[in-house]
């Protein structure tokens, strides 16, 4: 469980957010949504332990190993795909890390690219390596900071589908920062909305979702309706 109590964060003499009270449970897929510069990445960094709150408190009871996926794929150019993924595996060093890396490369469909260097990969493949690095060794918690922002639509849809598959398959907790409303509605069960549009307060929105396959949900009327409802809600003065 992750819990923020009256949490506030000050950055360069400006309050990014104040009095935030949020709770996340194991197995949640939460999208953190907001305009550029609102502090959503900072909130993610606080949740992942990379940053601290300026006031209030943040606590987590989770002991599970976590992975982080940055907006850029953040691969080391001098390491090949296998070695880049291995970077995420050292958290739990062991003789079976080789097998774990091989397995995760299979999951992200990069087995054939294991010996390639990042500059030989496409944008989508680079992001897959980054995800594999975050997933390797059965990580239960994933922090993702606008990971698909720089990708083309086709690759983005493909990776979104795959991400949902990993989330279900490995029973993960995912925190996903994005500025795309449609992406957040498609992926998550819960939205953490930074003040935007006409809304002046931070809001939490729980999405009711059918248990249909990811791909069919993307084309369903229900999905479009939810996107429209959330958009309208943000537009209307409260």
């Amino acid at each position, binding site marked *: 469980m992750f819990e923020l109590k009256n949490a506030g964060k000050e950055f360069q003499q400006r309050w990014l957010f104040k009095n935030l009270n949020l709770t996340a449970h194991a197995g949640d897929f939460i999208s953190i949504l907001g305009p550029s510069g609102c502090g959503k990445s900072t909130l993610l960094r606080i949740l*992942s332990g*990379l940053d601290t709150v300026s006031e209030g408190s943040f606590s987590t009871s989770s002991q599970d190993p*976590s*992975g*982080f996926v*940055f907006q*850029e794929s*953040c*691969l*080391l*150019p*001098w390491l090949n795909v296998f070695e880049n993924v291995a*970077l*995420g595996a*050292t*958290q739990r060093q062991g003789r079976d890390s080789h097998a774990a890396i091989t397995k995760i490369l299979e999951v992200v469909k990069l087995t054939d690219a294991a010996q390639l*260097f*990042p*500059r030989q990969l496409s944008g989508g493949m680079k992001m897959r390596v980054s995800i594999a690095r975050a997933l390797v060794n059965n990580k239960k918690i994933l922090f993702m900071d606008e990971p698909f922002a720089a990708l083309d639509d086709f690759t983005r849809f493909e990776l979104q589908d795959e991400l949902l598959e990993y989330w279900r398959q490995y029973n993960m907790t995912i925190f996903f920062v994005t500025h795309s409303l449609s992406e957040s509605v498609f992926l998550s069960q819960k939205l953490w909305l930074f003040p935007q549009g006409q809304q002046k307060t931070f809001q939490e929105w729980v999405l009711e979702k059918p248990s249909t396959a990811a791909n069919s949900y993307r084309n369903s009327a229900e999905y479009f309706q939810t996107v429209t409802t959330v958009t309208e809600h943000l537009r209307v003065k409260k």
Partner: protein
Amino acid sequence: MKHLTPTIILVCLVTAIVEILYRLSYWDAQSIPPASVILQTITENQDAFVDAFTSTLKLSMQSLALSFILGFTLAVIFSLNDWIKRAVFPLAIFFQTVPIIAIAPLLVIYFGYGPQTILAAAVFVSLFPILANTLVGLDTIDKNLLELFQVYRQNAWHTLFYLKIPGSYYFIFSGLRISSGLAVIGVVAGEFVAGGGLGALIDTSRTQQRIDLVFASLIGLAVIGLLQIMLLNGINLLITRWRPFKL
């Protein structure tokens, strides 16, 4: 090699013009000797010239290697300990501003006449670019990558060896290139005061008004500089073929 073609053409052209003017007696070989005179001088003084050339080349390479080891090690220590860096780095900058020619006589007093003084002089001038460049490389690693290592709980040594050092590759290499030229300058400055090599040959030729020998030595020095750069480029090519350091 293709990009050097205009330079090669220009050098050949100027050499040919000087040579023709010299043959037609329109050129004063006492001021700037033509290629044929320089070649003849080298042939006549082959033994002394080859000895001097080899000695300067050897010391220049040794000093470059020593500067690399020292500069790299110091930069790593500085990047690991801010206090040491703040204490020592300004001194390195200060010594960098002192001309080697002014320091060289002092080095003779400390180390005597011989290769050790020449090495000291060459290391003195060629150390700084490697140190400064490596330090810049180590200190300007992408913030996201540093956070990545933080997320995956890599310790300081791991971060140094797997991220900072490879991430500074191009900085280190460009420092080496600058130092390569400076090492030759340092060796010659050392040889002026401590004797031996092309530096001493230039000095004695000057006192004997042997302009041709001075020019022959200058060409020898240029060849040394060129050889070192070619060697470094070859090493760079081998390393970057093995591991790409750019995305």
